[in-house]
């Protein structure tokens, strides 16, 4: 059933492409229906199935595709995949709702958007590494068009940079995947078969960093993160939400599935250096966010900072760290989506400026009280206040990091403090400027529309629900960490 998330999204994509450009509402409804249906599929599994206690992978489809090369069309899911699929579903519904106002070439816009979503779903449920890679590439192409055609602010530069970084990353990842396949001499690209093979330490020593870096370039690991802020800013709102919300997660998810799972020995050799980069990314992203004048850049750099937590959690390679990383992927997907929605759609399309100084002229809090409340709550969630999903996630990550690298968790703590500072700065400058800087007569802005309200409430509900009852996700994630697949990784750490 879950495989239909992929098929349906691609069908919707084709449906949008072939519907006439003069009927934008038809494309919107096609996209929205497909996104809601796919989310329901994920929710159905999550709510009505019991998580398997051994964390086993449930295979949905297994068919030979290119048998001579051992490539299969192998779709399946485990708890971690399921969480990511659910995130994709929620984020895509919200992204479509916040793209409701797209009128120019709407058929193509939603066509590309659904193709992107289909590719993302594909990555999360592929258990054949070649197939995973194919979906990973499929997700890159629509991003380029979405930014280059419908974007703003330096769009061709942002689009090109993003695509070049993505391709460099995926080339490295492909090298790692192919090397793993060739060296093992296995007859299949299936993950479960590749993990059977004991790779030599000398091989893992170089294969791990190559593959890992290949994937995490897309997750915005500092200092390879510079595509992220420019890309996020250039992209139209719905696309920024998906870029920060789920596409960056592709990199982190890939890093967990491929290099960390296949090369645990390599991981234990390199993890300290890489974890340092992740922690530096947390602090550097936050520091840069603190001095931005463009509101969207603040959010863009905050994504880099938050993704640092994901990678720090992954590299802590403890149970708490890994579950924190998965939670943070979910949480950041939701919160970043919300922040981009407020800045890019609710504010920018109304005021046509994102300069923090200029925004203080609009008396936004009184004109757009709904946007103010949403941004306040999203900001609190982004700061990691208890009650929101970000807190549980960052707590897991820091707890996990304490066991592995004490000093890095202090750096991560500093990152949280800086996170409070930049979020407050942006919040105060945009919505609560000093009273004297607000002119007596402000240009009136159109009110918030219904699709925007629905999207914002959906995302807020998701972050609160997970924040208050994280077991919703953790019950699925934890068994996966005990599954034999990740055991070599976690055990290696505890024996050091």
């Amino acid at each position, binding site marked *: 059933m879950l495989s239909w998330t992929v098929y349906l999204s691609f069908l919707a994509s084709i449906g949008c492409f072939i519907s006439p450009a003069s009927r934008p509402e038809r494309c919107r409804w096609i996209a929205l229906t497909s996104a809601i249906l796919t989310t329901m599929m994920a929710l159905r599994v999550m709510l009505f199935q019991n998580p398997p206690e051994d964390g086993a992978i449930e295979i949905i489809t297994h068919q030979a595709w290119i048998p001579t090369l051992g490539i299969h069309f192998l779709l399946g899911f485990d708890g971690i995949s399921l969480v990511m699929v659910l995130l994709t579903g929620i984020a895509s519904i919200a992204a479509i709702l916040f793209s409701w106002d797209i009128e120019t070439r709407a058929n193509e816009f939603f066509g590309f958007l659904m193709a992107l979503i289909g590719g993302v779903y594909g990555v999360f449920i592929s258990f054949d590494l070649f197939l995973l890679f194919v979906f990973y590439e499929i997700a890159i192409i629509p991003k380029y068009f979405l930014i280059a055609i419908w974007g703003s602010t330096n769009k061709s530069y942002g689009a090109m940079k993003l695509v070049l970084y993505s391709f460099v990353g995926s080339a490295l990842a492909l090298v790692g995947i192919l090397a793993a396949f060739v060296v093992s001499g296995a007859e299949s690209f299936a993950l479960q078969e590749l993990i059977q093979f004991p790779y030599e330490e000398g091989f893992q020593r170089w294969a791990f960093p190559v593959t890992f870096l290949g994937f995490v370039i897309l997750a915005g690991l500092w200092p390879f993160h510079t595509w992220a802020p420019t890309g996020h800013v250039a992209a139209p709102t719905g696309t920024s939400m998906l870029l920060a919300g789920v596409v960056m997660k592709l990199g982190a998810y890939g890093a967990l599935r491929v290099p960390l799972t296949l090369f645990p020995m390599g991981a234990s050799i390199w993890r300290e250096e890489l974890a340092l980069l992740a922690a530096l990314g947390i602090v550097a992203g936050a520091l840069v966010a603190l001095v931005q004048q463009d509101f969207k850049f603040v959010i863009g750099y905050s994504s880099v900072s938050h993704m640092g937590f994901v990678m720090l959690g992954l590299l802590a390679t403890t149970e708490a760290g890994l579950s924190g990383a998965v939670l943070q992927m979910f949480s950041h997907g939701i919160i970043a989506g919300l922040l981009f929605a407020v800045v890019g759609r609710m504010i920018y399309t109304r005021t046509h400026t994102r300069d923090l100084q200029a925004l203080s002229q609009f008396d936004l809090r009184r004109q757009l009280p709904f946007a103010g409340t949403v941004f306040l709550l999203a900001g609190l969630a982004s700061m990691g206040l208890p*009650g929101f999903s970000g807190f549980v996630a960052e707590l897991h990550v820091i*707890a996990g990091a304490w*066991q592995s690298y004490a000093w890095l968790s202090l750096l991560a703590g500093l990152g949280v403090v800086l996170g*409070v500072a930049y979020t407050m700065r942006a919040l105060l400058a945009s919505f609560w400027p000093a009273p004297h800087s607000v002119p007596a007569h402000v240009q009136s802005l159109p009110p918030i529309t219904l699709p925007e309200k629905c999207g914002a409430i959906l995302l807020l509900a998701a972050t609160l629900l997970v924040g208050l009852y994280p*077991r919703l996700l953790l019950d699925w994630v934890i068994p996966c960490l005990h599954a034999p697949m990740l055991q070599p990784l976690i055990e290696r750490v505890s024996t050091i």
Partner: protein
Amino acid sequence: MNPFPWLSLLTWLPLLAGLGLLVRPIRSNRVLAAPSFIFSVFTSLISLMVVLKYAGGSETSQWEERMEWIPSLGIDYALGLDGLSVVMLTLSALIMPMALGACRLSGLTHERLAGCLLMIQGTLAGVFTAQNFFLWFFFYEIALIPAYFLIKLWGKPGSESVSLRFFIYSMIGSIALLVGYLALASALGSYEFKSLSEASATQWLPEALGKNLAWFNLPIKWIVAILFALIFGGLAVKVGMVPLHGWLPDTYEHAPSPVTMVLTALLSKMGLYGMVRMVMPLLPYTPWPLIQLTMIVTVVGLLYAAMSAMGQVSLKRMLAYSSVNHLGYCVMALLALARPAMGEASLLTAKEFALGGLAMQMFSHGLIAAALFYLTSLMEHRMPGKISVDGPGGLRAEVPHLAGWMGLAVFASIGLPGLCGFIGEFMIFRGVFALIPWAACIALPALLITAIFYLRMLQYVFHGQRKHGACSLTDLSRHECLLMMPVMALILILGWFPHYIMDLLNPTLIEAIEGMIF
């Protein structure tokens, strides 16, 4: 144990009700202070009922509620009561309705203000009953949000930057605390406060730290010192201890007085309460030089706060510095507990005095500070603008009742025997003198200084001739008197019968002292 989750009710009912008031769309001219006041009184009555039932019971921890919450970190949703929790719960039950009432009396009737205060009431119940760090921190942080908005939106002009400073200071403190406690918890493998104190009592703590947190092969002493610095420092921001008090005087001055009541009487107590729960078990293992250093900073700081209070012109700033000074005594008592007793009976008794004094001082400072700021808010309502300490003069003739009650609160704050402020301070000094004499000696002049600036304030504000403007003020109304009666009565009663509170506290405190290994 008990079928009905009373403690959860006490926490979530006001929290959700407050939240409800905040998200309701604003319509003009709708004020809702009266229903929310009644709601707050109602919640407080339930708290007091719980307290009375607790007092009737025999065990030290009662009313436990437990549910699995985040199994991956071993965190439960667990609320419960012991002696200290009960006393703090009583305090918040007494103060919160008074603060809401004071808002109404001083013309602050916005329903969102009431909503914020109700939220704080809920989170306080959560903070004082949470059984593990995670849940405790959850409420501790949530309390910050309504407090921030109370200061920002209803404060005096200029409160924008003041509230931001309050928020940033608090968050930095919280993160230091969070990071520090997470290290401790990941070494112990548990977030429960109880397992921390057990690990301390059984001397398993250093072993666990050595095994699980061997950073760069640091000696255990150093690891404990780092954890102590993070946790104590983080909490000290909330208490407003002197080098970290930069947010406090401005915040107390700019916030509306009923809000300041809550800030000083209750929110600062969250920090002290946290110290008793989290820092005390660490004390036996903290290197002695670090304790001494912290002690010097504390006593010099409280002396400095007393002297600063003397130098203030604004009445509210003076009260703010006086609060810093009074809470400094509590921290001093806590640190004195680190002195090894080596089984010596006299030192053990001294420790009981110090810890009992700490708890008593927390309670009585809550009552007294609330009374002082309550009366200040009434004065502000009558005389808009800043009230200065060398002030209008001659108010006693115009408002004899207000002046009389102010006098009572002031004398309680000075620590006059027979009023409740005396008990706590006496017990603290009795304990600290035996444990760390030099600290008590340095702190002692602060008592005298306190008397000087308070009496001077009484003289210049209430006695003598009215300096300028002979507007006639109205004296306390019946409502205003009635609202402060519970607190004033307790200030008087506890001065003579402290055992009402001490009986609640003692079993818990003695358990805690005996739990400290030396």
